[in-house]
């Protein structure tokens, strides 16, 4: 399977994705902005920059059907060491608490390990979004669990189901088996083990056109099933809603589920989730150093609204701290039901 970009698919262009999402004709849906106006939350403002999320590249060893990054082995966009240095300069001069490393498979960036060790020198908490199979993909990645442990990285990994069938349907044949083996290796160095202090969190996202069920109930079930069947332990399960962009948008349109899915998101709009959406305390940085309110806005080429501070070279913390968040129809994905963020639900 190839990325939309390499296939020259029309949805590889963010303008075409936005044209579907913002369609006033065939696919007309209640504007997200109107919901916020009605509850007195427009414009939605940032509350600060606590989380600095860095997308170090779109290259990945997997080609997942729902991927909002359109990542895959054929994507060549990779953050350079110079851009990493810009990140480090910004981090050194800020009180950002957490650096969240994502991709693609971030470990495929040749400077990933250098970047991690430099961030650690700044005494920042690091979240590493590891797709698990990268650990098994090549001998040079087999020691990643030990590297993560040495750098006290909080590992966050996708596993859309505790069953082989659903996992492989979404993420590709053989992904479940490799993921289980990788989780066992992470457990072996202490991840997820009680008292180790090494956090191993899993991410659930629906394998289809529906919203996640209760995060709490799922976590219980995942813990029981993974331990019973494979002896695997982990800390928390994050239930994440699929955003109607990129490959998932393509799936929704092809399967005839797009309008129903949008209606589901809209009818499940939860004002309590709005107040806790992740864009309010996060900055998302792209492989080439531009800044966005979140990873989804990044993929839609919607940079932060701050005039004169779109790139790390012009990082203006004061302006970013109180910026207006850029909102479009895909934002319904973060406010449906119990809400959704890179850390799971945001409202009870």
């Amino acid at each position, binding site marked *: 399977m190839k990325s939309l970009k390499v296939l020259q698919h029309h949805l590889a262009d963010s303008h075409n994705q936005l044209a579907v999402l913002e369609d006033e004709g065939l696919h007309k849906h209640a504007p997200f902005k109107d919901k916020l106006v009605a509850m007195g939350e427009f414009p939605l403002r940032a509350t600060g920059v606590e989380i600095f999320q860095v997308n170090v590249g779109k290259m990945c060893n997997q080609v997942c059907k729902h991927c909002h990054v359109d990542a895959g082995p054929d994507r060549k966009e990779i953050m350079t060491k110079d851009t990493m240095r810009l990140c480090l300069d910004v981090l050194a001069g800020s009180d950002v608490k957490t650096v969240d490393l994502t991709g693609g498979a971030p470990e495929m960036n040749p400077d990933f390990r250098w970047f991690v060790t430099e961030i650690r020198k700044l005494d920042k908490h690091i979240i590493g979004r590891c797709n698990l199979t990268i650990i098994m993909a090549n001998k040079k990645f087999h020691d990643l669990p030990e590297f993560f442990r040495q750098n006290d990285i909080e590992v966050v990994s996708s596993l859309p189901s505790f069953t082989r069938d659903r996992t492989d349907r979404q993420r590709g044949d053989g992904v479940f088996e490799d993921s289980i083996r990788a989780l066992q290796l992470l457990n072996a160095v202490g991840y997820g083990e009680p008292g180790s202090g090494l956090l191993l969190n899993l991410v659930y996202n629906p394998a289809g056109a*529906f919203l*996640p069920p209760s995060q709490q109930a799922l976590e219980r079930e995942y813990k029981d099933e993974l331990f019973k069947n494979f002896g695997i332990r982990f800390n928390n399960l994050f239930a994440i809603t699929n955003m109607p962009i990129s490959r998932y948008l393509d799936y929704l349109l092809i399967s005839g589920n797009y309008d129903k899915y949008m209606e589901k998101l809209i*009818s499940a709009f939860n004002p309590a989730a709005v107040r806790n959406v992740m864009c309010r305390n996060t900055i998302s940085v792209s492989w080439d150093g531009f800044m966005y309110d979140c990873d989804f806005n990044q993929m839609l080429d919607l940079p932060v609204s701050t005039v004169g501070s779109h790139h790390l070279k012009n990082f203006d913390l004061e302006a970013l701290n109180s910026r207006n968040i850029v909102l479009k129809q895909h934002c319904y994905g973060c406010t449906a039901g119990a809400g959704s963020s890179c850390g799971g639900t945001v409202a009870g």
Partner: protein
Amino acid sequence: MSNHYYNADDLAKFGNIAEYQKDMGDKFFSYYGDVFKDSHLTAKEKSLIALAVAHAVQCPYCIDAYSSDAYEKGYSEQQMMEAVHVAAAIKGGAVLVHGVQMMNKVKEIGM
């Protein structure tokens, strides 16, 4: 009025039944909500029971709702079909067990 008895869009209007009898409607939905909460049975287990019952009572709205709900809660296609077979077996068994009544009657009147 539509020209057929069942309309998929009507499922979303279920809540409207309280318009004509608010008190009873509100009580029903409150009860309904409580029934499907996690308790001695999990909400997931209750969803599969609901799916089987939906087939037994042949309610297209309920089949629509609980096919989605059970799948969303993580049941596989095979598990869901087995639940339908449970409903079918009970329905079939319910017909056949009445065969005993038929046999009793025939034995009563026959020579």
